[in-house]
């Protein structure tokens, strides 16, 4: 029987391990699948510890931030109170408009928009590496969370759920290179796709709206919202604001640099969207 010498045997083991791990990366990258039991056990087991560390970190951060920026916090508090009064007033107007909209839709024979419900969740961890834009939240399939559900904050769209365990889930954020969202310019209703800017880490966190026609009516300051196409993200969620408009690399289409309305570095609470409005369909 052929016996390999010690260094050769070691080399073979290393090569086998490299091939195995590479295959695993290719497989999970391509099929985007996760194995259940071990991951579920780890995620569920570590959730209380993650919650504890996350809260401790938040408290210390807030304490020092408050100490360092006491005056700014006071001013901000005053501004927020004023803003709250304005928002409350707007909210009342909005309720009225919603009722009116509902009545008019019924008169015109439009199908009713399904109101989506939001489940609040706390962010307990985020990927510490710079390569994957994911966060961990403390709601899982025990709370009814399912894969591909949209995740939002009051500022706008965050991403979607890509892995669910019993009591926690992982969310792939908009800033990840794998994420693409069908979007609209709110003012002109121009459609396009939102994705991250590849190849320019210095623009990390910025988004690019591509596939805009050369005649598209888009300008800096425009608000970009989700279009609802694709079935994952509800229509009308704010994605961000246009910063720059230019041509794509081939000079055939327009593209825009979009600054997200969500601060992805400071996410503490998010909402999981349970149902989203069905596309508006006119009934014959």
């Amino acid at each position: 029987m052929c016996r390999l010498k010690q260094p050769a045997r070691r080399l073979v083991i290393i090569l086998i391990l490299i091939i195995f791990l590479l295959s695993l990366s290719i497989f999970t990258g391509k099929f985007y699948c996760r194995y259940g039991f071990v991951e579920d056990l780890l995620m569920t087991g570590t959730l209380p510890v993650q919650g504890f560390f996350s809260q401790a970190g938040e408290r210390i951060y807030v304490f020092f931030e408050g100490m360092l920026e006491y005056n700014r916090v006071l001013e901000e508090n005053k501004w927020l109170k004023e803003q709250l009064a304005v928002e409350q007033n707007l909210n009342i107007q909005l309720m009225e408009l919603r009722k009116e909209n509902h009545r008019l839709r019924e008169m015109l024979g439009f199908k009713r928009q399904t109101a989506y419900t939001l489940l609040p969740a706390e962010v307990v961890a985020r990927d510490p590496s710079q390569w994957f834009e994911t966060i961990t939240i403390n709601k899982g399939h025990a709370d009814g969370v399912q894969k591909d559900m949209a995740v939002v904050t009051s500022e706008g769209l965050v991403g979607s759920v890509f892995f669910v365990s019993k009591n926690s889930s992982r969310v792939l954020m908009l800033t990840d290179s794998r994420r693409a969202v069908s979007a609209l310019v709110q003012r002109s209703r121009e459609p396009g796709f939102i994705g991250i800017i590849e190849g320019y880490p210095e623009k990390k966190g910025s988004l690019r709206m591509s596939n805009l026609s050369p005649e598209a009516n888009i300008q800096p300051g425009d608000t970009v919202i989700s279009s609802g196409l694709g079935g994952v993200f509800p229509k009308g969620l704010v994605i961000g604001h246009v910063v720059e408009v230019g041509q794509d690399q081939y000079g055939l289409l327009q593209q825009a640099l979009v600054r997200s309305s969500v601060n992805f570095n400071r996410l503490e609470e998010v909402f999981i969207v349970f149902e989203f409005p069905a596309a508006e369909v006119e009934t014959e």
Partner: protein
Amino acid sequence: MENKFQLFFYPAFIFIIILVLVFQGSFLSYFFAQGRMPDLVLVIVLCLTFLTDEKKGMLIGIIAGFLQDIIFGPLLGVFSLAKMLAAFLAGLISREIYKDQIIGPTLAVFLLTIFHEAVVFLLVSLFWRGSCSNFYYSLKNLFLTRAFYHLILTVPIYPLLYRAEQKNFFLPYFK
């Protein structure tokens, strides 16, 4: 008796790595911008490997990396492979450095961090992004920042592990 101790080493190591990973993802994320956070697990793996050999280093590297893949990464195998290779190199370097002096391990951690990040960069570009980001920018702004953090962290972590090893804390695993 030896086997009993060896069996104890791995569960303890797994438990500590899980705790460190959770601490990194939950607590430290408040104080560092994403991508500029130190990878404590890598520092621990490399420092432990300097005190043993490449074979055991690879094993602890692959375990730590796999736990990181499960807890955070959407891709399995990326951090396992990167940490395994970094630990293998650390094992080879450990033969050439004076283990009782801090300078060798510190500089080695600095260089191996850059190597680790470059491996992850390559794997993520190939299997996740599908395109290659700006390597020079990543090296200058992300890898070097992280390597510098690790250099500082090695100063307290390595002597701690070295003293534990001197007091036969890791016996018989490290013999």
